[in-house]
């Protein structure tokens, strides 16, 4: 009898928890607790630059008597990531965002390491510097190439923390935000931001490049794919591409990279040089010669330990240039996506100097 009661109570609790659960699939454009900027260029003096913005949409201006902070205040920690040689290098910079605050920085000033790569930032408690569920951050980056008169604007990818949605009465900071990584709140206390559907939303399962122009003239049009993974420099990430031309012919291709890459489409497959299209009989004359791609995770392998990971998590963006002499046009956007990647992975959240006396 007692067991039966316990069963029904557990079932009811499960129903309630299910009702409270948030989608593990990210919606990039919703405010999140962790933002990913897929392309950041900190190199200065070469006509290039990146303007990075992060905005705190939380407007709680009540002053907390314990901490002295306004309740809507958060610390965000920028992590600039670059790949050099065989390692990935991270530079972390904490910044305080008061309620309704916006911080706009020139990447080269903010991170004088003259690097190109990607960036992520997350919300942390300004007192303890622990990760918190603070789904109020939005951001974007403008990449400018003054010499070539080009610019691309991309929103940051927002990932929500799921602690608040999944844990009734979580342990909170003095400012009132649930700690993400603590065991009592369902975290694994590993000092990292885990994309496991518990601490944060999962990364997407598959990516799409919705369209790209034919790259027949190699001296003119370009299209670069930007791909990044959270698996650092320890893993060589294998991807499986399916490339479709303007006649829906399918071409498969494998490709691998480490940490982050900006790769011309031609380097992935020569198919992009000839997409068929309007040169073929029966194709409507208004059709442009375009193609598209599916990108699936294959296998990631650590060459030192031989550890393999199926379906490694990847996100990305595209930057295209169409040159109609004497002009050059540049544009780009985040890659479309679908599904949730089931592999639990993480990004470091511990400040790099935290063990310094």
């Amino acid at each position, binding site marked *: 009898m007692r067991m039966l009661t316990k069963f029904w109570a557990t079932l009811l609790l499960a129903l309630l928890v299910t009702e409270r659960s948030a989608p593990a699939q990210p919606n990039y454009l919703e405010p999140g607790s962790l933002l990913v900027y897929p392309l950041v260029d900190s190199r200065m003096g070469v006509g290039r630059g990146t303007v990075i913005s992060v905005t705190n949409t939380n407007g709680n201006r009540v002053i907390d008597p314990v901490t002295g902070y306004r309740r809507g205040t958060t610390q965000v920690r920028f992590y600039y990531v670059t790949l050099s040689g065989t390692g990935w290098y991270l530079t972390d910079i904490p910044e305080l965002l008061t309620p309704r605050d916006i911080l706009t920085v020139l990447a080269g000033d903010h991170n004088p390491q003259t690097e190109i790569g990607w960036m992520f930032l997350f919300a942390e408690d300004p007192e303890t510097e622990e990760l918190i569920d603070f789904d109020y951050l939005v951001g974007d980056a403008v990449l400018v190439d003054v010499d070539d008169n080009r610019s691309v604007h991309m929103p940051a990818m927002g990932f929500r923390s799921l602690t608040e949605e999944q844990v009734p009465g979580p342990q909170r900071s003095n400012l009132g935000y649930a700690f993400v990584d603590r065991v009592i709140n369902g975290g694994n206390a590993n000092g990292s931001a885990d994309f496991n559907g518990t601490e944060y939303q999962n990364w997407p399962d598959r990516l799409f490049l919705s369209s790209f122009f034919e790259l027949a003239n190699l001296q003119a049009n370009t299209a670069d794919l930007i791909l990044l993974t959270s698996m650092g420099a320890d893993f060589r990430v294998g991807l499986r591409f399916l490339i479709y031309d303007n006649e829906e012919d399918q071409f498969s291709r494998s490709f691998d990279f480490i940490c982050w890459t900006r790769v011309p489409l031609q380097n992935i497959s020569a198919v992009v040089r000839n997409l068929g299209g309007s040169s073929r009989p029966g194709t409507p004359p208004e059709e442009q010669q375009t193609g598209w791609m599916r990108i699936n995770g294959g296998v990631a392998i650590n060459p030192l330990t031989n550890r393999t990971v199926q379906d490694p998590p990847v996100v990305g963006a595209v930057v295209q240039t169409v040159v109609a002499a004497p002009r050059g046009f540049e544009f780009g956007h985040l890659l*479309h996506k679908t599904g949730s990647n089931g592999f639990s992975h993480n990004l470091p959240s511990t400040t790099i100097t935290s063990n310094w006396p």
Partner: protein
Amino acid sequence: MRLDPLRGAALALATALFLAGVAPAQSTDSINDYDPGSVLVFPIYISDFTNGYASVVSTTNTNGDRRVVLPGSPSGLRGDVLVHYFWIDGTGTWDIFDEQALLTPNDTRGILSFDSLNGTGNQDFEQGFLVAVAVDPETTESIDFDYLIGDIVLVDVTGNRTWNLPAIGIQSTTDENGNVTERSTRQHAFTDRASNGGDGAGDLDFDGIEYRRWPNFLFISSLFRQDNGVNGTNNDGEVILLTDLGRDFIVNLNMLFYDRDESESSRTGTFTCWTRADLATLAAVTTTPAYDPAGWAVINSRDAVNPLTGQVVADPGLLGALVQRVIGQVGLEFGHLLHHSGLNPRNASMDLDF
């Protein structure tokens, strides 16, 4: 009366299951812009070839099902979809020009807006927005076909500038809600049929039953100071907004602008159907030094009024994008979709005359 704990728990469970069963199934998820959808919204197109503006619209069918439909049915493949395009004129007439194109499995279609619009005699359609809807190739009814993705490239040949936007993907919820009794011969659920939970009105209902709901708040995550010639530069930008209510209503907006010091300025505004509003005109505060290097804004719809009938609609649906230009020694143009949060309390609905 004392209730036995077991019976009490069972009663509560039964009540919960009963409510879940009789209540109309409704998704509580908002649109997921970058996911494939059954409806794509391109917040802006420009097709003014005389003045050097053009757009290239791409639509891709990511469904790769090449099985033939059941024997005895009309020929075709399971993954075929007919995409019904609705070009809405934003220059004041709010007229709609529609066309259809069949996308076979894994098909992509890139078109110049000029070829679709101006080439067919629709000279008024210089700018506005575009809605692409997945419909059944046989019945031309809207279907749950969450396989469409798209993007648009906007080119200013004269100004030597270009930018692009992904289409906003809006997912159908018909299949997820589990009420499907009628499917097309290609096995895709009809979204609007009453037997599937739709209202049978021949429109697009963003109510969590036919399609996912629209957001409640829009954010301009950052905007540069609109300095209009100060310091030798001429930065300007426009916010692009569209509503589901069409041309019969004037939409009233509530906006909050924040400068770099978090100082708040409120502002109201109005528009009809679609607008490309100059930020400096919309809120002159964005021209002040406090917006150097950047500020941000929140946009929320208050209500909409039909000036002819006096009808008032609360919480009209809003979607939007941002474009900015930095014109100094060089001219740069860039933009992106607006961030958003929450669910619009009102169910947006688009009557596009299928």
